[in-house]
């Protein structure tokens, strides 16, 4: 649970498009119920557990399972690497 909050808000400070803290603290992937990560490049929420990304439209996270997009493997990998670097630093 903490991990979601940390991952989502680690990108938050600068962007302004980020997910508010209170929301980040409780959001999980609707399919796996595992943490989500905010991907700044695509402005979407990524569930690494199932490799699905969910859009954020007008500040409203869209976490309807059928609206999730399966991630391309390579893209997912590289994003995951860069995000891990970010949040540890």
């Amino acid at each position, binding site marked *: *649970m903490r991990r*979601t909050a940390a991952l989502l808000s680690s990108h938050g400070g600068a962007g302004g498009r980020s997910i*508010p803290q*209170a*929301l980040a*603290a*409780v*959001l*999980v*992937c*609707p*399919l*796996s*119920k*595992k943490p*989500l990560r905010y991907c700044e490049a695509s402005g979407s929420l990524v569930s690494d*557990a*199932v*490799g*699905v990304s969910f859009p954020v*439209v*007008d*500040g*409203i*996270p*869209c*976490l*309807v*399972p*059928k*609206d*999730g997009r*399966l*991630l391309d493997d390579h893209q997912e990998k590289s994003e995951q690497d860069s995000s891990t670097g970010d949040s540890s630093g």
Partner: protein
Amino acid sequence: MALRAARRLASCSRQGRLLLPSQAQAPCNPPAAAAAAFLHSHATSFGYKQVREEEKSRLVGNVFSSVASSYDLMNDLMSVGLHRLWKDRLVSKLNPFPGMKHLDVAGGTGDVAFRVLERIKSVGHRAMQGTLTATEEDTHIYVCDINPNMLNVGKKRAVERGYSEEHCLSWIQGDAEALSFEDGSMDGYTIAFGIRNVTHIEKALSEAYRVLKRGGRFLCLELSHVDVPVFKQIYDVYSFSVVPTMGELVAGDRQSYQYLVESIRRFPNQEKFAQMIQEAGFERVEYENLVGGVVAIHSGLKL
């Protein structure tokens, strides 16, 4: 009495089983499995029509997109303003408190969420004599709706009412059957006039159970079944003749309101629905009929 005890025991063991899947499912859920889950389809009802499951959610989506702008006006007309009192009653049963985390599902237009917020503010101020306390700042209400049009209506109303979103209100587009909230994260769960529209009621109930904390309360306001003889006949004429015509004249959409009245009749009756809530693991399940059963408020606790 013995029967009730047996039922309670049975619901306890069900609870255990219900909790397991989400834990077992944990580490790596391959994308293929998730995708495959969507391919399964069975017949379900859309009003009186039999439709494929994925078709129902699309059709329900169309209904609500179509009526979003005139939704509140139609609610006022159809219920002669009573839906406001029903929602007040729902929130008073919830007994909101400062610092609570509350999830309102299918409440896109904010009707229930604003009431919860108002109530918390009045409770907090009475206790603290006007000073904003730390607990009050912890209050958070999550509004989850599958339909973006309804959420946009609610968000707009929140701005008009001067609620700053960052503080205590969040809007999430999500599915009642697959909620995107952490296990045991909510003190309360409400769903007003929403559960009738989900494809699998039992999935929505087990998700409600999952996201609630121990001691958390489930409350559901839904159009239900009238059993008072003469009143039932009047109500039937009203629903099947007056409501669709009103929908046509006001919202310019007869079919959506035809769906509405049919879906009410398809919904399980008070006793059956209470049983389903119990089967999802809730305890102290009870319901209250309002206006002779036109609507009912079901309540349950996660203990």
